[in-house]
């Protein structure tokens, strides 16, 4: 089965490429079919856990966690492909886009099924460079470059860790190799730190988050959902590997314990907490909807990292589930934005508004997505955030719990902004004639919406798989019973929650229908001080949306200048090297050679 999937992927990449050369649209449909086939194929693998396949120098095995992650990724990729046929004309190299899209899909799926460390790294890097080449087809070369460089920082650290592991343990199999470090904590710490770094960069954890807003913001609109919902989750898998498969808690067993969490892991969790706070605050500030969602991904990455690093009954389950919830929600949100961008040509909130009148279905999709993202009850996001919060408060990790709570509240602020600025408010005159998104796009978006809802109503469908993962890892599984999800602190029945919220919603709907209708007012249908307004953007709903907060951001510290300064420093060092060692004058080179000769002769004479 695995072999077939691999061969199918390779063949389909070539097929999609050749087809796209002929006619880009066909290639786009090919990506749709291929990713659907991949989804079906991988879903069939559920039963064959433990099966191993060697393909050339790559070794794969089916694990529950791998299956879980690849299902998430394939879902995101699959739903994104519904948009492809409509975007081919916006790309410079559509054929390359289609082929690289499938290549990155193959890379990510390969990553989750990797059995040995080399396969892991090869699949990882394949996904990175292929997605980098896709990102550059969007609006910005700079963004693609920053994405690559940040990824490279992570991957080189991981490569170091992987090679050191292989060298020390003498085996390349992930599970066998990492066990080696049980006996050597010092080296284990180094390997752990280096290995998880690629996960951190990929998830956009605090000091490495700079690429996310850039890349998400300027990637082709069809690829942003994949970046945020899909590729970022590769980082979660690395985090999972480095804490669950790598015996991190045992290796750090003799370190200082904070509420049962070793200091290094706690430090990482703090970084996660910082990401939550930082991402939330920055997201509030953004004007571009895609950048806003990107910063929200930073914040949600923090949740996922904290949850997975806890490695316990509740938060771990919450973290893993949040991977799915956030993937679905953020993909849906990005897709909704893509649909808007397709019709209007922009994602700047200050240029949009009132889209609900023209694109109601897209609005619903976006609404459900952000409810889930913010963790408001009836949607999936609530369950996972609730679990993480439960886990944190159970352990008594006050700071992190505070950060998580802050992030939840802050998320109301930022998810509401695009909702009101893009979809609500008044419709700009130039958008009077736009239509609802194409039915094919709607199918993709609605699939995700349905999943978000479903995850909110019956989270136990997913939690069952997660419980099995926990059992395989030897930690207490999350307790599930019918529709009740139980933890040590309490339980929640999402079905009843949904029923309550459903009643509430119905009530409001009835009131809305019964009460008199509000009168629609055009954007320009107003005056102030007896003057007509000629600068409509000042009256725009999204204009100075959070004016009260804006002063807070005036002196907001940014990390990007630090990296820019580092880059500048490197260039200065290069210049320095050029003037000293690469100066085009024979005298100087001879001088250096003489100096070295003297060094050696004098050194040898002692």
């Amino acid at each position, binding site marked *: 089965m695995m072999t077939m999937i691999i061969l199918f992927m390779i063949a389909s990449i070539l097929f999609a490429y050749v087809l796209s050369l002929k006619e880009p649209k066909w290639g786009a449909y090919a990506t749709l079919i291929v990713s659907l086939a991949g989804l079906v194929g991988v879903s069939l693998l559920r039963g064959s856990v433990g099966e191993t396949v060697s393909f050339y120098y790559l070794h794969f095995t089916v694990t529950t966690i791998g299956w879980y992650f690849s299902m998430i990724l394939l879902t995101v990729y699959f739903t994104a492909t519904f948009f492809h046929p409509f975007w081919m004309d916006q790309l410079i190299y559509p054929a390359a886009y289609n082929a690289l899209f499938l290549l990155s899909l193959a890379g990510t799926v390969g990553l989750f099924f990797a059995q040995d460390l080399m396969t892991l790294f090869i699949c990882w890097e394949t996904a990175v460079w292929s997605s980098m080449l896709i990102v550059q087809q969007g609006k910005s070369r700079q963004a693609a470059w920053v994405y690559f460089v940040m990824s490279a920082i992570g991957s080189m650290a991981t490569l170091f860790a992987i090679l050191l592991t292989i060298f020390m343990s003498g085996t390349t199999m992930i599970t066998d190799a990492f066990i080696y470090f049980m006996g050597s904590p010092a080296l284990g710490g180094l390997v752990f730190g280096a290995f998880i770094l690629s996960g951190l960069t990929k998830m956009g954890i605090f000091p490495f988050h700079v690429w996310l807003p850039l890349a998400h913001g300027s990637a082709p609109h069809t690829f942003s959902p994949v970046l945020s919902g899909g590729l970022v989750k590769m980082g979660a898998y690395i985090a999972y590997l480095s804490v669950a498969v790598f015996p991190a808690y045992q290796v750090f067993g003799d370190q200082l314990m904070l509420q049962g969490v070793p200091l290094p892991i706690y430090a990482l969790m703090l970084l996660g907490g910082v990401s939550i706070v930082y991402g939330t605050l920055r997201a509030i500030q953004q004007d571009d909807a895609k950048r806003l969602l990107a910063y929200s991904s930073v914040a949600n990455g923090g949740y996922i990292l904290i949850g997975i690093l806890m490695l316990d009954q509740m938060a771990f389950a919450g973290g893993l589930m949040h991977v799915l919830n956030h993937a679905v929600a953020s993909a849906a949100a990005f897709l909704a934005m893509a649909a808007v961008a397709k019709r209007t040509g922009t994602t700047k909130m200050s240029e949009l508004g009132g889209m609900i009148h023209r694109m109601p279905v897209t609005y619903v999709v976006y609404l459900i997505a952000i409810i889930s993202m913010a963790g408001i009850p009836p949607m999936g996001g609530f369950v996972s955030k609730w679990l993480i919060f439960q886990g944190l408060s159970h352990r008594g990790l006050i700071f992190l719990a505070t950060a998580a709570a802050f992030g939840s509240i802050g998320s109301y602020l930022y998810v509401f902004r695009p909702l009101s600025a893009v979809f609500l408010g008044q419709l700009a005159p130039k958008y009077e004639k736009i239509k609802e998104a194409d039915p094919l796009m709607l199918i993709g978006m609605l699939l995700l919406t349905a999943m978000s809802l479903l995850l909110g109503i019956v989270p136990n469908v997913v939690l069952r798989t997660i419980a099995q993962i926990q059992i395989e890892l030897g930690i207490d599984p999350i307790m599930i019973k019918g529709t009740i999800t139980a933890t040590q602190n309490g339980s929640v029945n999402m079905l009843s929650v949904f029923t309550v919220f459903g009643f509430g919603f119905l009530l409001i709907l009835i009131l809305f229908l019964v009460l008199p209708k509000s009168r629609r007012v055009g954007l320009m249908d107003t005056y102030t001080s007896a003057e007509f307004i000629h600068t409509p953007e000042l009256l725009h709903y999204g204009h100075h949306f959070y004016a009260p907060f804006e002063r807070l951001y005036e002196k907001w510290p940014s990390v990007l200048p630090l990296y820019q300064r580092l880059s500048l420093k490197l260039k200065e060092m290069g210049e320095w090297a050029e003037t000293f060692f690469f100066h085009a004058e024979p*005298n100087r080179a*001879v001088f250096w050679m*003489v100096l070295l000769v003297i060094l050696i002769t004098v050194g040898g004479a002692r």
Partner: protein
Amino acid sequence: MIQFAGIALILIGIYGLMTTKHMIKLIIALNVMELGANIFIISIGFVAHGLAPIYTADLPNQAFSFVDPLPQAMVLTAIVIGFGVSALGLVVAQNIYKKHGTYDLSEIGGEE
């Protein structure tokens, strides 16, 4: 003594290479350096009271020894190579002069 002269010539040549920017003088310094190297190499094969390594009719009958012929063979090669390089360097310098009107590298600057 000749060995010292050889080493000294090498070092003087290097001194010239380090201090001058005049192309002809650089080549001259290079020649001095090569000359020193050749002298030094020959001196390595020297044998006290040795004879030139040629069998002739009037070799002494009693025990004698030749100087080492191998370094001489090497120097023979080195001299010819040195000539080749000097000639090439000169022709390059000459062409640079034709283009820039000076032999001084510092006046030409980096040819970008």
